[in-house]
């Protein structure tokens, strides 16, 4: 091999520009740290953060606590619950758009995929099982340790992608995972989230006093409460339930998107978009 034949991928000018950009970033960070780009936020704990840290798990203040040891999960599903509902709605609207635009597509089940070599298959089996166990732990312990619904759901979607790469798409269909099933699971989980959010209003209907939408624990003028303890473990009521439901929703939605994008080129039963017959 002659060394002249190997063409350099990047010129010297590109490397120099990249290095100068990195040095510019470093200089901006130093100026920002001194305070030259505006007033820095204070380093002490502010009032809102202090109230959340004090009240996330506080059995002595039953009207403001959520019995969740993970303060981030308490904020996301209890103190800021309706924001998170709409945040989930953004992702689900994107998946609905994918399902609408690519609606004329059928699963190609007749061709048989062979997958990769036996070494890759064996290691992928181990990794997939470990990832599933870790995702279940992330989801169920979302109120005790770092983690939560979205993290566990995306990790489960990663296992589906690994199976597609290492085995084949046909193997996934043989496992019983199809696009219609994913859509059905997603709708069921979303409707369950909505129903759980509206359960406290049953009290008003029955005439037992006041309640709030997305209510978790007892408030000052309401006696409604989700379960706060599972034997001796803190079970943060709606935080735990919403974490599990969000896991199912996100996993099925992302798996559906990947399966939809992966459709074979020659197997479109109708024109995508349905504009021309």
């Amino acid at each position, binding site marked *: 091999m002659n060394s002249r034949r190997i063409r350099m991928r*990047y010129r010297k000018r*590109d490397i120099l*520009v*990249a*290095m100068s*950009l*990195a*040095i510019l*970033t*470093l200089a901006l*960070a130093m100026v920002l740290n001194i305070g030259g780009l505006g007033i820095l936020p204070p380093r002490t704990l502010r009032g809102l953060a202090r109230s959340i840290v004090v009240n996330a798990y506080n059995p002595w203040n039953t009207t403001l606590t959520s019995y969740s040891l*993970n303060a*981030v999960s308490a904020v996301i599903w209890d103190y800021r619950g309706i924001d998170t509902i709409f945040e989930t709605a953004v992702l689900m609207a994107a998946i609905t758009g994918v399902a609408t635009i690519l609606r004329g597509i059928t699963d190609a089940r007749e061709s048989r995929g062979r997958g990769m070599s036996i070494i890759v298959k064996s290691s992928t089996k181990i990794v997939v099982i470990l990832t599933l166990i870790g995702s279940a732990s*992330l989801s169920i312990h979302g109120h005790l340790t*770092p*983690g*939560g619904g*979205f*993290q566990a759901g*995306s*990790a489960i*979607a*990663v296992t589906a*992608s690994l199976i597609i*790469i290492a085995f084949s798409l046909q193997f996934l269909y043989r496992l019983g995972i199809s696009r219609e099933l994913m859509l059905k699971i997603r709708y069921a989980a979303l409707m369950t989230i909505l129903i759980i959010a509206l359960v406290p209003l049953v009290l008003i209907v029955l005439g037992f006093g006041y309640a709030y939408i997305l209510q978790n624990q007892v408030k000052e003028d309401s006696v409604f409460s989700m379960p706060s303890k599972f034997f001796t473990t803190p079970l943060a009521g709606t935080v735990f339930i919403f974490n599990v439901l969000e896991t199912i929703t996100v996993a099925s939605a*992302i798996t559906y*998107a*990947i399966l939809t*994008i*992966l459709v074979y*080129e020659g197997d479109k039963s109708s024109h995508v978009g349905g504009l021309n017959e």
Partner: protein
Amino acid sequence: MLIPILIVLIASMLSVIMAYLTVIEKDLLLATIYIAFIGILYTLIYYILLAADVVLAYIPVSSILLPIIVIIVLKKSKRLEE
């Protein structure tokens, strides 16, 4: 105390270099690998800055799901840009 700051510094400067190389790269498959590398560097920075929840959400999305979707799109279109 000094070592985490140094790791954050090196990772952030490397991520800027990788971002520039991603923009000028003509082979889009290689650019996708650069994007995944940026994801690894950002994960390191988030971990050192004690944002555990963000790390757990960022690992699957940045280093697996985004490259897989981009690679599927590249398989259905062209690998080299003009």
